[in-house]
């Protein structure tokens, strides 16, 4: 039982927190701009590597590099929007999706070019886990969960208490009506990119802290992020957060040796969980848990 908590549930919560942050941004972008942003994972990788550059250059810890990663990722998202997506705003959502696929490839190529294809890490070294009774928790896991909770709270306050956040939700509900009330659509779109980029950059640093960095790391979590967003109800940021948590847990639990010592699912197929969740959602509840758009 404790093994379940220590080695499956807690790591699942950590992975879930990372997915949740990514899926929340994805859902925000979908809600406001109505297209599936396929470069989202690559933005995440960009954030992770921006932190790596800061860690290497300044000798700071990756935690301290988070603001730098976020600040570096926002302009990338804004530039992609200004250079590409803004010019395609009148096209079909599918065209924007294809364009974002191209953006993702460009970001990935840039990371490969600068950092090379090999796995790296932030070089944090080994720290013994905290022991709380029978619970053993990695300190970095605690920080990641706490960080995600803070990010969620900040996002909640932004969306519900600020004028700009309300405008974002209004745009997601009905863009024409938002314009009638005087909302500057271009400004809300920029804000949405900024928020999504900050969230996904933090998620990238967390993922790099929890595992490793490769230029393809973002593409690998893209499917999970979408599955989480759709599970939660696409366009609904809170749904995306919940979907991310559930999916992270499901992925870790999938390798739990429930029956006779063999894992439920071969760990090599962990990514398959995201796909299974996606397919089951589409069959059983296509609008997602929180009635997406």
């Amino acid at each position: 039982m404790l093994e379940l908590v220590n080695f499956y549930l807690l790591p699942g919560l950590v992975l879930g927190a990372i997915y949740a942050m990514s899926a929340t941004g994805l859902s925000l972008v979908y809600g406001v701009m109505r297209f599936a942003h396929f470069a989202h994972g690559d933005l995440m990788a960009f954030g992770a590597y921006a932190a790596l550059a800061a860690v290497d250059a300044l000798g700071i810890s990756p935690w301290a590099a988070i603001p730098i990663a976020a600040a570096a990722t926002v302009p990338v998202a804004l530039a992609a929007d200004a250079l590409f997506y803004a010019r395609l705003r009148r096209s079909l959502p599918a065209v924007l999706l294809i364009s974002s696929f191209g953006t993702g490839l460009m970001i990935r190529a840039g990371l490969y070019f600068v950092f090379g294809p090999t796995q790296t890490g932030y070089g944090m070294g080994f720290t013994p886990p905290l022991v709380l009774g029978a619970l053993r928790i990695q300190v970095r896991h605690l920080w990641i969960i706490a960080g995600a909770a803070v990010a969620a709270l900040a996002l909640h306050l932004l969306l519900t208490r600020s004028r700009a956040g309300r405008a974002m939700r209004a745009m997601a509900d009905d863009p024409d009506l938002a314009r009638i009330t005087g909302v500057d659509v271009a400004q809300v779109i920029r804000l949405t990119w900024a928020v999504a980029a900050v969230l996904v950059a933090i998620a990238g640093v967390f993922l790099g802290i929890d595992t490793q960095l490769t230029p393809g790391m973002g593409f690998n979590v893209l499917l999970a992020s979408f599955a989480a967003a759709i599970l939660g109800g696409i366009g609904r940021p809170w749904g995306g957060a919940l979907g991310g948590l559930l999916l992270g847990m499901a992925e870790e639990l999938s390798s739990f040796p429930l029956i006779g010592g063999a894992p439920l699912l071969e760990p090599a197929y962990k990514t398959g969980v995201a796909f299974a969740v996606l397919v089951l959602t589409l069959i059983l509840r296509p609008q997602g848990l929180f009635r997406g758009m």
Partner: protein
Amino acid sequence: MALLEVRGVVGGYGEADILHGVDLDADAGEIVVIVGANGAGKSTLMKAVAGLVRIRAGSIAFAGEAIANAPAETMILRGLAYVPQERNVFPSLTVEENLAMGAYARPAQAAAGMARVFALFPDLVQRRRVAAGQLSGGQRQMVAIGRALMLEPRLIMLDEPTAGLSPKFCALIFERVQAIAREGVAVLMVEQNARPALAIADRGVVLAMGRNRATAPGPALLADPEIGRLFLGG
């Protein structure tokens, strides 16, 4: 010169024109009611004034300023508010947040605006924290009208505010519309409930296939037998 002057407006969605030269006037404190068959272009005319549909010819002047094809998001600051026919509230926002969106362009006036709207529609007070998508049709209409009134517009356009409402709610809405006009606001209203609407209209406009068919004081239109037969269902 009238507050709103629409002259010879031609326009529509994409290639095909829906409006083929429409004229319209609305003055402060006046209730102007537009009636016409389904598809006559009533909603399109309102969208053109609101800046959501491009016009190819003609002019639209508001308070003496040309506003044709100005961006929709600039209209509210000119004092021109608009309540679309459908989808006129933000369903996932609460009543209060919907009203706050009405004051988006001038947040400083939000508190005063909300107090006025709650005085006009006391039913909404209890439901201020309910998501607008969960309200009944009548309450939703009140939220939509309230939202449009938040910044004390000089002209409010209401597209079928009583569609699908019970007679009780219709009477309430018409009564509030008169109250709004008495404060000096110009009210431009499209109505399918043509008879009760024309009864309170200072001016009635009959639109047919994107053209003006008749314009006269509301009661006069009601009395016209041909208009009655063609547009008001007998």
